[in-house]
Structure formats: structure tokens, C-alpha cells
């Protein structure tokens, strides 16, 4: 699910671990509605919540959350620095 340039695989990661939304919410210390809102793309989580979710799922944060591909990458924005 994608929202505001943020893509997430939370539902897939959760399903891989056979967790319900309520289970994950309990592990992350939020309500099930927050987990549902993130999965359905209605909410972009804070960094703190994203870290809690990644810890609860035992995976890295960029496995769950990633930027949409149409956003420019670092190498496309910055020019290489010339050292004299």
C-alpha cells in the first residue's frame, strides 16, 4: 500500500509471521486501528512507530517501508563533487 510517496509491505510482513492486526498492535503498543490505517494507506506512521513496528516484526525498517520509485534518488539530485 502506498501513501504520500511511502510504500509499505506491512500486511505481507504480518501475514508471513501469521500475526493478526491486533497481535501486531499489541506488540507495537498501539491500537489495531493504527495498524489498519497504515496498512490501508490512510496514515503515514511516525519514525517512532515505524521503528516499533519493525522491531515487533523482527525485521529492518526498509523491509517494511520504502519510498515510491518515482521519487528522485540521491545520485540524481546531487552532482559529484570535483576535488582539485
Amino acid at each position, binding site marked *: 500500500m502506498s501513501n504520500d510517496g511511502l510504500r509499505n509491505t506491512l500486511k505481507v510482513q504480518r501475514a508471513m509471521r501469521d500475526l*493478526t492486526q*491486533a*497481535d501486531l498492535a*499489541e506488540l507495537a503498543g498501539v*491500537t*489495531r*486501528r*493504527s495498524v489498519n*490505517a497504515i496498512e490501508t494507506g*490512510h496514515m503515514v506512521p511516525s519514525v517512532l512507530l515505524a521503528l516499533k513496528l519493525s522491531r515487533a516484526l523482527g525485521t529492518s525498517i526498509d523491509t517494511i517501508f520504502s519510498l515510491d520509485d518515482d521519487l528522485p534518488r540521491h545520485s540524481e539530485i546531487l552532482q559529484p563533487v570535483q576535488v582539485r
Partner: protein
Amino acid sequence: MSESIPTRSERYLRYSQRNMVALLVLTVVVGALCLAMAFRVDAAPRWLVQGGALIGVAAAIGLGALKSVTLRGTRWDPKSPEVQAVMRDEWRRTNMDRAMRVAFVVVLTAQIPIALLVASLPSLRATMAMAVTTLTLGLATLIALYLFLSRQQKDVE
């Protein structure tokens, strides 16, 4: 994974939502009574005093009933992890922030229409009517919008 804790958390969440509905109703009723008092100060006093007392009693009974029906004997302990999860919930805070922004704009834009509405009243009553209308409108918009934004999403497991 235990089933009891999510159920309790869900119960606390439902209780919190229902409290907001009760607060919305109370806000509208009290706001309407105060407005009636500002607009019809001669006709109102007796039934308003009685009505005000009744509202207090009804609100206390209603909130007590709401608590016992929704929590079903579970204590509302602010330090418990489930209550903390509900109170610090990010979806809840996000919706409250959104609702606050909209309520602020609504209150600001409503000032001139309200002023026109109360222009015919004596200055003291007009000031009171304007204050009550602004408060009621702001609070009612905030709570109603918060409840609307917090409604259950479709994709739920």
C-alpha cells in the same frame, strides 16, 4: 499471542469513542441551553435552571451507565499498557490534529455570520451569545470530525 489483551484494548478504545459521542451530545445540549438563555433571557430562567440541573444528573447517570456497559467490570486504569496504547495511539492523535485544524478554520470563518446573527441583541447578551456559539461550534466540529475520521476502516482483519 494471548487474546485477552487485544480484547481489553479494543474495549478501552470503544469506551473512549463512546465517551466522545457523549461529550458531543453534552456540548450541543449545553450550548443550545446557553444560547437559549442568551436569546430569550426573560422566558428562560425557570426551566433553564431546572433543565441545567437535570442535564447534570442525566450526564452523570449516562456516563456511569456507559462505563459499566462498555468496560463490563474492567477498571479504567490510566497506567495499564492497554489504556496507554489507546491514549497514545498515533491514529487517534493524527485524527485529533486533523479535526483541530478544520475546527479552527470553521470557528474563524463563522465569526462574521455569528456576529451578524447576534447584532440585534444588547451588547452583554450579544457577547455571551457569540462566545457560547463559538465554543459550541468549535467543540462540536472538533469532536464530530474526530469521530468521523476515526470511523472503522473497511480493510480489517
